[in-house]
């Protein structure tokens, strides 16, 4: 019975793998809000309403007027949006947030209203990794949520391996190191050993606010405030944890499979 039952079920349910990137990307939940946009020229003089509600001090006041917002620290709790009296911080609903440089996550000032999305690896690296990429994941004080949403990419819905990307068991087999968590002191040694065990050329991907900046644990003496001070990071994927589509977009962006510019760049060119 089982055989007939499963076969019938498979025929009825059809292909469960999403069309993306050849079709539309899955929608973020409406209350997620996606990437944030900051138009600091709309800030009221001397207004600090958003600064004091941010749980991770992601928002810093500028001396004159306005603020900067660091999406690498942001937990996407939306408290700042609620607190802002002038609508300077808005949700774009955009799942794309991965960047190549840490400073590209900092919003504020003309031209920097949104994150500056990641570009692909250089041609030489793309030649090596473009069609076959092996990743080793290390959780270093991660709470299990970013890890869970990385695992999700392996399910039938997302089917990461169709892009030639796979998570492997040994750092010896890996091209890239995917780090989650604020890097607890107790994982420092294991993390460095894992990185050292990988053959060059290799790169590092920081997934989630914790890995990028320490997230809510930033400043605790038991953690290192993210991976940045320890290893060179090639891709930052913000979120708490990042939605699977945000992670997938980051990986595809790195491999040059997704190239469309972000809204700010389009506006800039007009």
């Amino acid at each position: 019975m089982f055989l007939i039952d499963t076969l019938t079920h498979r025929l009825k349910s059809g292909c469960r793998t999403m069309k993306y990137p050849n079709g539309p990307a899955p929608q973020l939940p409406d209350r997620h809000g996606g990437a944030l946009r900051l138009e600091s020229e709309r800030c009221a003089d001397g207004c600090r309403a958003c600064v004091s509600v941010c749980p991770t001090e992601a928002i810093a006041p500028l001396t004159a007027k306005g603020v900067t917002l660091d999406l690498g620290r942001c937990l996407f709790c939306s408290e700042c949006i609620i607190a802002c009296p002038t609508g300077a911080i808005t949700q774009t609903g955009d799942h794309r947030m991965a960047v190549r440089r840490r400073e590209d996550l900092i919003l504020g000032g003309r031209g920097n209203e949104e994150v500056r999305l990641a570009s692909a690896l250089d041609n030489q690296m793309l030649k090596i990794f473009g069609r076959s990429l092996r990743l080793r994941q290390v959780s270093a004080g991660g709470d299990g949520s970013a890890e869970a949403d990385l695992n999700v990419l392996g399910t039938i819905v997302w089917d990461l391996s169709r892009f030639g990307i796979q998570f492997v068991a040994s750092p010896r087999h890996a091209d890239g190191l995917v780090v989650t968590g604020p890097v607890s002191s107790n994982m420092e040694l294991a993390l460095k050993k894992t990185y050292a065990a990988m053959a060059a050329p290799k790169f590092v991907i920081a997934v989630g606010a914790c890995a990028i900046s320490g997230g809510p644990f930033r400043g605790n003496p038991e953690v290192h405030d993210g991976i940045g001070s320890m290893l060179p990071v090639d891709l930052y994927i913000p979120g708490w944890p990042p939605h699977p589509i945000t992670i997938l977009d980051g990986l595809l962006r790195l491999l040059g499979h997704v190239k469309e510019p972000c809204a700010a760049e389009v506006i800039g060119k007009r």
Partner: protein
Amino acid sequence: MERRCSAALPNAVTSDSPLVLLANSTGLPWNEIPEFQIGDLVGIVRGELDRGGRLCAWFGVPEGSGVRVVCVIAFDADNTLAAGRSAPFEGAFPSLTATHAQAHLFERELWEQHHLMPEGHPWLKPVRRSSGGAPVMDEFFRVEGREIHEVAVGPVHAGIIEPGHFRFQCSGEEVIHLEIALGYQHRGIEHGLVGGPRRATMSQMEAVAGDSSIGHAWAYSAVTEALAVTEVPLRAQWLRAIALELERLANHTGDLGALANDVAFLPTASACGKIRGDFLNLTALLCGNRFGRGLVRPGGCRLDLGPDRLIQMGERLEAALAEVEQASAWLWDSASVRARFEGIGTVFARQATDLGLVGPAARACGLVRDVRYDHPTEWYRFAQAPVAVWPSGDVFARARVRWFEIQRSGQLLREQLRSAPDGDPFATLPVLQPETLAVALVEGWRGEICHVALTDSESRLRGYKIVDPSFHNWSGLALAMRGQAISDFPICNKSFNLSYCGFDL
């Protein structure tokens, strides 16, 4: 907001307890917690555990140059908690572990954090202490003999999973002893709370164990509300219960899939991976975050389910429940799966009682132990699911209990989505009471989440103790592996699916 009565009514078994009784999610003035000399307190706790009590927390609070040890004991059958404290002391005390194994990690903490020496502790070593970028491991238990070999696994495992170290003593394939050494994920959460709460505290609570965000956020909120002597609005209680059951559904479904995967039964494995996501997306429908972050706050819930959202949730829930029903039917129908699950990693009821196991791991040993039923608070006073129990204590039982809980949580949600109370989901909290101890238990999907808070004279946190269910249950996994083939470790490990970060804090 309603004022709330904090005293529990004493009843038959517990009425003569020398400890003070209190109900779940209530507080008591610190000076009303009875004080004993530490030797006497250990004796009292022994007596209470011998007559059916269960150790929820056993931790230290520094005072002057000494430390007070605080106990929180649950009498599940009597639906009450009991608390007591020692006079401040330094140096040694008679170990509770010597007679009651469930205290062993608590006393290792007391030794590590407060330099109190539990005399007679059989295996005293650090829990999370750091040295040279790794936790201090000390000596592992070793079995000697020509045929004996040792297997060391971790901290970095072959998968996308948190780090921990497992040290097996094996004779051929057979595991004689497994020692589990954690601490790699230590982020200093409890230590960082002293003097708080701070701006990042709520977010830290949501990340104590990332797959139990609702459970820990609820426990923290409940303890805070107990310190403010208030109860949150009904609407918030209802929303919290919905979110907690969705969290249970997502994780139990994921676990069934992972168990199927470990015995190479791919239809259920692939289906459950997808359905788990459907449940996570229902949580995201409620609050935007797949793990429920940003929903539960002291005072209630930040977001509500409007009428449209409620209808959508009901429809999508039905679809996901139908799918998980189908996927698990394949699993239970398959003789090859049953053969791999049955008789593997058995923990006996007596062992589970001695170790103080909680959650599905305890219920799979036949223990009727569920905070929602034994110590109901908030919405669980009005709506309950039957406690899911299976007696065999093996991988099969742990899988089976999960499946029962998926069905019962599903049914509970179906009913509760139709009985929404009116009103606002949030009310601002009054100031917290100074010098008060409050305890909150929440039945997360892994089991009992226990938070204990103590305020100082300015209502700041003077001490905070978090006990994730994993803290009790890792010892259960170690015991389950005795006499098993080492190749059965993955499936035994999945059947418990414990948190590393929740343990390491």
